[in-house]
């Protein structure tokens, strides 16, 4: 159970005192048995979510979507359309909840801001030389500051996977804290690990703790730009990390799987993972998000089917 939050947080502050202490701490975390982790994720995937539970889960999932467009071809018009969709995902049914946020490149933040003005929808911006993160720190920080100045409510940063894989954890830590500082009190920080590039579950667990120690508000699986993105197993692992981190420090951190979640069925499986791992405190878009673009339309179609009993098909949801 959570011990006294301030003392525990203090105990963990020592962890980041030096390269050696940080490394010792991260390498001292319990290992992850890959077979067991994947088996647990698969077994939770067999939960059968029907009727009222399904209706609840679909609405919850819609409210957790970070509706995303991260293309070189993005235009203000495209972002405007996306913003309108985020605010009112189903124009034929006003009871449909808004999504959590729209997620765009930094230069599109003003357009996004305008599009969602007056709604609960947040504007998230990727920054820090997304998706590769291969830029000098000064450039990354400028990227963040510009996005925040333009009104971004949330910043999705990428960690320096090269430094992480080279064992230079303190460098990664310092970068995250610097970005966190640049976010100030205005913007919440999501830290993207690009789990597909970290490749082992042990690394994902270490990265999760590293991110949380450095002050991440959210830990996020991936950019959506590499071959392996969010999976039930890596998300389960990160949910265990935020659960354990809160138990030790009293600080709650959110989780955002991103990339590759396309169907309602998949989204519901992730919500089951949340429910049965981190618990219901995370069943809220302040603490759990889906980074996705095509997922929303499938959720809307399933929502319509539950409401009407008919599957109307893709012509009855908007393409934005």
């Amino acid at each position, binding site marked *: *159970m959570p011990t006294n939050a301030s003392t525990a947080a203090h105990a963990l502050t020592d962890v980041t005192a030096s390269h050696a202490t940080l490394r010792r701490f991260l390498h001292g975390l*319990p*290992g*992850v*048995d890959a*077979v*067991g*982790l994947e*088996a*647990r994720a698969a077994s939770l995937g*067999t*939960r*059968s*979510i*029907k*009727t*009222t*539970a*399904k209706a*609840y*889960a679909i609405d*919850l999932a819609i409210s957790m979507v970070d509706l995303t467009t991260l293309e070189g071809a993005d235009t203000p018009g495209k972002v405007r359309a996306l913003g309108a969709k985020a605010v009112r995902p189903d124009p034929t049914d006003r009871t449909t909840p808004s999504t959590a946020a729209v997620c765009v490149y930094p230069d599109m933040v003003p357009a996004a801001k305008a599009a969602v003005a007056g709604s609960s929808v947040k504007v998230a911006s990727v920054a820090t030389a997304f998706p590769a993160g291969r830029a000098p720190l000064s450039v990354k920080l400028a990227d963040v500051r510009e996005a925040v100045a333009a009104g971004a409510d949330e910043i999705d940063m990428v960690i320096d996977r090269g430094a992480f894989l080279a064992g230079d954890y303190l460098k990664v830590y310092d970068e995250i804290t610097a970005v966190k500082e640049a976010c100030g009190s205005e913007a919440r920080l999501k830290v993207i690990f690009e789990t597909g590039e970290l490749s082992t579950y042990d690394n994902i667990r270490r990265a999760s703790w590293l991110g949380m120690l450095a002050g991440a508000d959210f830990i996020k699986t991936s950019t959506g730009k590499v071959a392996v993105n969010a999976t039930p197993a890596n998300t389960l692992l990160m949910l*265990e990390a935020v659960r354990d981190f809160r138990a030790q420090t009293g600080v709650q951190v959110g989780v955002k799987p991103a990339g590759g979640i396309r169907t309602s069925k998949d989204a519901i499986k992730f*919500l*089951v993972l949340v*429910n*049965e791992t981190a*618990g*219901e405190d995370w*069943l809220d878009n302040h603490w759990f998000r889906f980074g996705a673009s095509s997922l929303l339309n499938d959720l809307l179609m399933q929502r319509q089917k539950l409401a009407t009993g008919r599957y109307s098909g893709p012509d009855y949801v908007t393409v934005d």
Partner: protein
Amino acid sequence: MASAFEYAPAPESRAIVDIAPSYGLFIDGEFVEAADGKVFKTVSPSTEEVLSEVAQAGTEDVDRAVRAARKAFEKWSALPGTERAKYLFRIARIIQERSRELAVLETLDNGKPIKETRDGDLPLVAAHFFYYAGWADKLDHAGFGPSPKPLGVAGQVIPWNFPLLMLAWKIAPALATGNTVVLKPAETTPLSALFFADVCRQAGLPKGVVNILPGYGDTGAALVAHPDVNKVAFTGSTAVGKEIARTVAGSRKKLTLELGGKGANIVFDDAPIDQAVEGIVNGIFFNQGQVCCAGSRLLVQESIEEELLESLKRRLSTLRLGDPLDKNTDIGAINSEEQLSRITRLVEQGEAEGAERWSPACELPSSGYWFAPTLFTNVTQAHTVARDEIFGPVLSVLTFRTPDEAVAKANNTPYGLSAGVWTEKGSRILAVANKLRAGVVWSNTFNKFDPTSPFGGYKESGFGREGGRHGLEAYLDV
């Protein structure tokens, strides 16, 4: 688990299985009444609803069935292996085709969750038949010399915890090697064996090769004592196993026994904790702990006891107990009133002896036989709950300080069926596993079954191996 995300009931439909109001014995390819007309009822343990009335085999029926099996043996054993394999492959495929029906049936008659029968029992049953079908024409190369011969008629007595799977473990290797069988299912779970009889007919299996005799202990006793039985295979309690060993002593019957256990699940301080917790849960709460190889003793290194128990208790609070047909149920019903009272008695004894009892908040259904998942802490080797097989969802937690102590405690039992070792250190796995006196040692997993892997016990957990190439030996004259 009161949560905003309440899972709505998701029951598997019963409509897929058609249970007749009464069933006969299956002898010589026909369903027949018992010679003395006796019947007994089989109930669904989750509701106490009577499912069907089943003929109860007596001594005369045993004799009739053994004679049918003897008669069938001549032709069956003379068939080329490739021909016997065809029947076994056919049986395996029919089981796959009817797996949903059989899973629902098994859940109704046994009380275990549909999740387990659907994803565990049935796939393993089919896999077992497929596996031994593959051996039927390769016996020359099994390591028992050229053209090893079958034994004759096998008398097989199986338990109620995995009714169809135990049937598969017994019948598949027996038929593959050219024996014929008379099998007695447990009195609380006769239905899936009787449906299997129908599968045999559907597969066109020659009459008399498989005979099914539902009944109580006296039916089993008559079967194993029958003078024309060449091979006895039994899975069940150690007490009955000893009785059977006495019965067949001095006869020329070949005997294999798969008996009780008190498996130790050893968790070292460098274990993958989250997965170890899953393994502990799977080790003792799978099938409500009614598993002979259950990891019913948790041996945890003292330095992580508190942390591990905290995680374990949190995890137990998420277990969903209730309607076994609900697809989201993790813990089903105890198989019978008798078993429930045995569990209750042993747990009360544990409390009386001073062990600390804990269960998650958990509402038990008002009808049927139910027992909440239970942990005992402050347990020592001297406690009854650490020594006796409870055969229920009850875990005893003990601690150790060093690997040697873990091994000594794990082996300090008259049983020797299963054990588990949890550590991220490969060398420790090998070192500890080699010292454990248990037929199966799992590392960083538990209750993992595969037809290719031999299974069986040391000491009072029995002898002989089932599964794998080793499983052929019990049915061959070698």
